[in-house]
């Protein structure tokens, strides 16, 4: 690994620049241009982070599941799929965390409490724990292939929880907003600019996610090859044990 080479390429750098621009513009739209909400006042602006981040997390976990499926289905299995799955899950967990935090802040403002044991909040918390568990499974000792096999199975199971989170509000009576944007036959309550900011947020976060995953899976590649390098040394030492006793 020569020092000047990083995990970036010209493509990812351009993407990075684009993401920065988008983040700035999202800040402008979210905090400046978009109107206050009739009921919630300025606090509604939290939505532009809270909602896109959780949706991006959904995307991330679906991607993890897809890559895991591909990994398992292929005849000769390529660890690249596994690395993307892992990277995507890591970033996904990150985004769920963001949405948990923003959400509970928002809750403090609107419901007067950080946390209630409401169906969606709880199911979100469980989604979070599930993928923390997934990452823990990835860290179990064993060869890269073992890691890949275990974790891809986990991923395919874990993704089933997303619908649970999404429909939790309809399943159980809940304080939380029900699917107002995502659900098609709902008369959209948000005015045009708010809606635009919301989707701007979605685009921004998704691209940010892509950018992060590209880098993360490359660092994983480096980690793996570094581990292999370490193994070479260990093997040499092990061979030298012969006959010394």
């Amino acid at each position, binding site marked *: 690994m020569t020092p000047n080479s990083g995990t970036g390429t010209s493509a990812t750098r351009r993407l990075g620049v684009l993401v920065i621009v988008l983040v700035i513009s999202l800040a402008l739209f979210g905090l400046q241009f978009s109107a206050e909400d009739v009921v919630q006042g300025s606090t509604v602006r939290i939505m532009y982070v809270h909602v896109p981040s959780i949706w991006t997390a959904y995307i991330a976990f679906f991607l993890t599941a897809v890559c895991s499926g591909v990994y398992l289905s292929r005849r000769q299995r390529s660890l690249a799929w596994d690395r993307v799955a892992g990277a995507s899950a890591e970033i996904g967990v990150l985004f769920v965390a963001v949405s948990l935090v923003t959400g509970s802040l928002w809750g403090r403002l609107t419901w007067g409490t950080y946390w209630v044991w409401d169906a969606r909040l709880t*199911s979100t918390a*469980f989604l979070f*724990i599930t993928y923390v*568990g997934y990452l823990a499974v990835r860290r*179990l000792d064993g060869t890269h292939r073992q890691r890949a*096999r*275990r974790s891809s*199975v*986990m991923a395919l199971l874990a993704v*089933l929880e997303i619908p649970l989170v999404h429909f939790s509000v309809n399943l159980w009576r809940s304080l939380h907003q029900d699917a107002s944007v995502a659900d098609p036959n709902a008369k959209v309550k948000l005015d045009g600019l708010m809606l635009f900011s919301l989707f701007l947020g979605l685009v921004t976060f998704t691209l940010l996610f892509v950018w992060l995953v590209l880098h993360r899976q490359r660092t994983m590649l480096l980690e793996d090859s570094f581990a292999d390098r370490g193994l070479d040394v260990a093997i040499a030492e092990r061979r030298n044990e012969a006959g010394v006793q």
Partner: protein
Amino acid sequence: MSSVKSRRTIAVAVARKDLSIEWNSRILTNQVAPFAAIVMVMFAFALDNEGILQRVAPGLMWLATLFSMLIVVQRSFTVESADGALDALRVAGVDTGAIFVGKSLALMVQLFVLEILLLATAVVLYGVEMTAVGLLEAFVTMVVATAGLGCVGTLYGGLAAGAKGRETLLPLLLLPVVAPVLIGATRATEAAFGSGGTAVSEGWPWIGLLAVFAVIFAVAGTVAFGPLVDE
């Protein structure tokens, strides 16, 4: 090994083996059941001052079941790894799906016995009254919920069975997955008990949810158990 018949025989053999281990060691009857019962008594202690016991009885019953399940699952895989039998089982080269089915069945039987006991305890301790229909519903709930718990318990128990570090995962992995069961079963049982004036009819949709859960994990387990327990 792959012919359906032999798969069934293997599943049965594994289940019978696990059950006779239980029969010989009496862990469930002498250790887990009292534990669960005491758990419920303790709840009674800790909460009775509020007189809300009847209302939360179903939740408590299922909580006790889940805690006991953690113990039973861990036990069910300790006996495998204690003297390296899990390796022997792997080398036996029998269909892992069959092993999964067998161990799940054994686990279900044990859990079911446990739930019967807990239900009885709940009726006695918390003074729950039930209609005939309610009783039936409670029964169905237990059957369906147990099916789900058995499958998911075996699946993650298998993952936790192998190398040292893994076992520490079991509670972490199991909690989020069984949470839906806890909720579904609790609500259904509330309906069966008529706690807080819920009508018996309200229970059935929840039972449906439990059934879906059971099916998903039965299928997932049969497919995924092999790769998971495998080193």
